[in-house]
């Protein structure tokens, strides 16, 4: 399984990942200039926090959001193993928001659905990794630590 790895030593906190994630994933226009002025405001799926670290969904092996979701809205793609929200069935109970240990899942400010990073599963490569100017965000094969230990 390929996951996003963030190197805090390389992250400069430039927010480019947020900007382009908001444009590419969350906006209707999919282009920067119109996206900036779009209503409702697009919401990025990646968050640059405090001391310069980009946070995305870790797609946990034992994902608590999957267990907490009462109606199977939170799903795992059987092929890629990526965790995503199946928006049409979301009942906005926010259980996933509460249980996420990284605070990655958030309620949409506009629609009654949970929003989270799906590692751009419908694109070839995650946009945040593509635009990161310092290569702090990279895509790597996840090591199976159960085998390592």
């Amino acid at each position, binding site marked *: 399984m390929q996951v996003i790895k963030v190197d805090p030593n390389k992250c400069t906190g430039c927010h*480019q990942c947020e900007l382009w994630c*908001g444009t590419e994933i*969350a906006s209707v226009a999919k282009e920067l200039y119109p*996206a*900036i002025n779009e209503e409702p405001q697009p919401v990025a799926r990646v968050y640059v926090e405090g001391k310069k670290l980009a946070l995305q969904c870790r797609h946990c092996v034992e994902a608590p959001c999957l267990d907490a979701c009462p109606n199977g809205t939170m799903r795992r793609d059987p092929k890629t193993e990526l965790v995503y929200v199946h928006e049409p069935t979301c009942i906005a109970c926010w259980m996933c928001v509460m249980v996420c240990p990284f605070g990655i899942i958030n309620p949409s400010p506009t629609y009654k659905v949970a929003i989270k990073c799906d590692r751009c599963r419908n694109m070839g490569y995650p946009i945040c990794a593509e635009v990161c100017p310092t290569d702090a965000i990279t895509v790597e094969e996840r090591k199976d630590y159960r085998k390592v230990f």
Partner: protein
Amino acid sequence: MEFIQRKTADRAVSHFLLKAADQEITLTWDRFESQLPECGFCESGLSCRDCLQGPCISHPFRDQSKLGVCGKDKDTLAVQTLMRLVLKGTMSCLDQLNDFADSVKTGEIEPADKDRAEQTLKAIQNLLENGDSEVVKEFPTVLVDNWKTTGILPQGIARDIFKASQRLEGGICEMDETLLWTFKTSLLGCMADRLQRNLKTAVFGNTVVSELEVNLGVLQKDVPTILFYGYISPVIKQKIAAAAQEKNVSVMGVCTDPLLPPYRFYPVTTAASQEIPLMTGAVDLIVTGHQFVNPSLADVAKDWKVALAPADGLEEKGDLDAFARQIVEQAANTFEIRQNIPKDVPMVKEAAVMGFSAADVDVKKIAAALESGKIKGIAILAGSNNVKYTQDETLATVAKEFLSNDILCISDGEASVSLAKYRLLDPTRQKKNCSEGLADLLVSLGDNVPAVIDWSMTDFLIVLSGAVKKSLSDYPICAYFPEASRTVEVTKAMWTVAMGVSTYFWPCLPVTGSPKTQAALTGFCKQRFGASLHVITQKIDARTKAGYFLKTIEAPAVLSGKEWEQS
């Protein structure tokens, strides 16, 4: 993210792009691609690093981080980004003027018309001190009165520039007011540009219409060649040209004024491809200024063993004649040393006629044609290249669209060189591109008038406003900057709007993060000056860009053939 599809429309440059790729030489286009994606906050004017508490951004996709540390919101950030560009552009006009005036004052050159030179120097001094300068009287009274009422008539270089720059430091100021300060600053640039032109005429005599050749094919293999790069003091240029003539050394230019009576410096290429002439092997020495010159030239010059001579520095040059002789000798010596370097000069050069002014063209005929509807409008084409677009393509396409729709095209500065490369400044090709009404007008203007007329845009607008009955904003006149890249071009666009001429500018100015600023550049400016500065964010092709003006004059719509590109 934008990716370049085609780097240049210039076939001479294309030849060297392949060569550069083979030899692993990095050019402007390669560096641009390695920069992608460029910072989205900076591109949309939502960033600020005016103090050391930042850098700050106004985040368009978060509820937090909307304000900078000091509290600047997106509107303030965007308008201040514009102000910063205009300040820098104005500084480059003022620096050129200051440089030239200094050389004349210190007696380094004997003016052709001493009285006029003294008057111009006095006008420069007055503009510096209180703004009460003779140059203001050259502008139409209606325009000056409007500037006075709006509060943007310059009141002295020192005062206005200092005050305007402090708008970036902080304070509580409405966006509209900052925008007006931006216009005020740009008018200083306009007046400096005008004064520089006046001083050039006083010192070197009238610039006459001259026949030139343009593009890489003008380089000569068998004589030492000096290239002027960027803005260089006309006095230094004149001294070097005089010394070079004695020693049979050829002198040409890139991004520099090609006409300096009695000398002509053939333009070798345009801004985006400024490294290419060195790769021909036919350049021995380059004299570089600071404005419009890529620092990358130093590396390319080293690779091709081209000598470098900065035109100015911290130390005074002393005797300029001796400096000029030294440059010419160095070029001759370098030519001997570089005999083993293979020379590859493409046979691509075009004839062009440049340097028109009111003395060469009867502007009353243009005014009459405009008022009678013989021509549908006037378009001013300005600006240099921008690596974000295919080099010269937009400029040439827009010009051809206008010419075929009875729109008179005036080109300014670097745009003239770009257009000359596509034979649009060649009088023998005049009829090929122009529609009937326009062709008739051009024939009536004289024998040697090309399809696109190279004429300083400010000079043209001032002369034209004296010949028409109403103010310029009442006529279908526009300015296009389709491939702009330098700050001085932003300044020019601003002063063109202040003169009542609507302006279309690409790439879109870094104000797109603030819809309010963007709207003010159209609505507010229209209300104050009768003209707008259009910031167009859609990705459109060159013909559709031409369509924006054609639509306003109800010419047949230009179809690019791509439905999604029609706005």
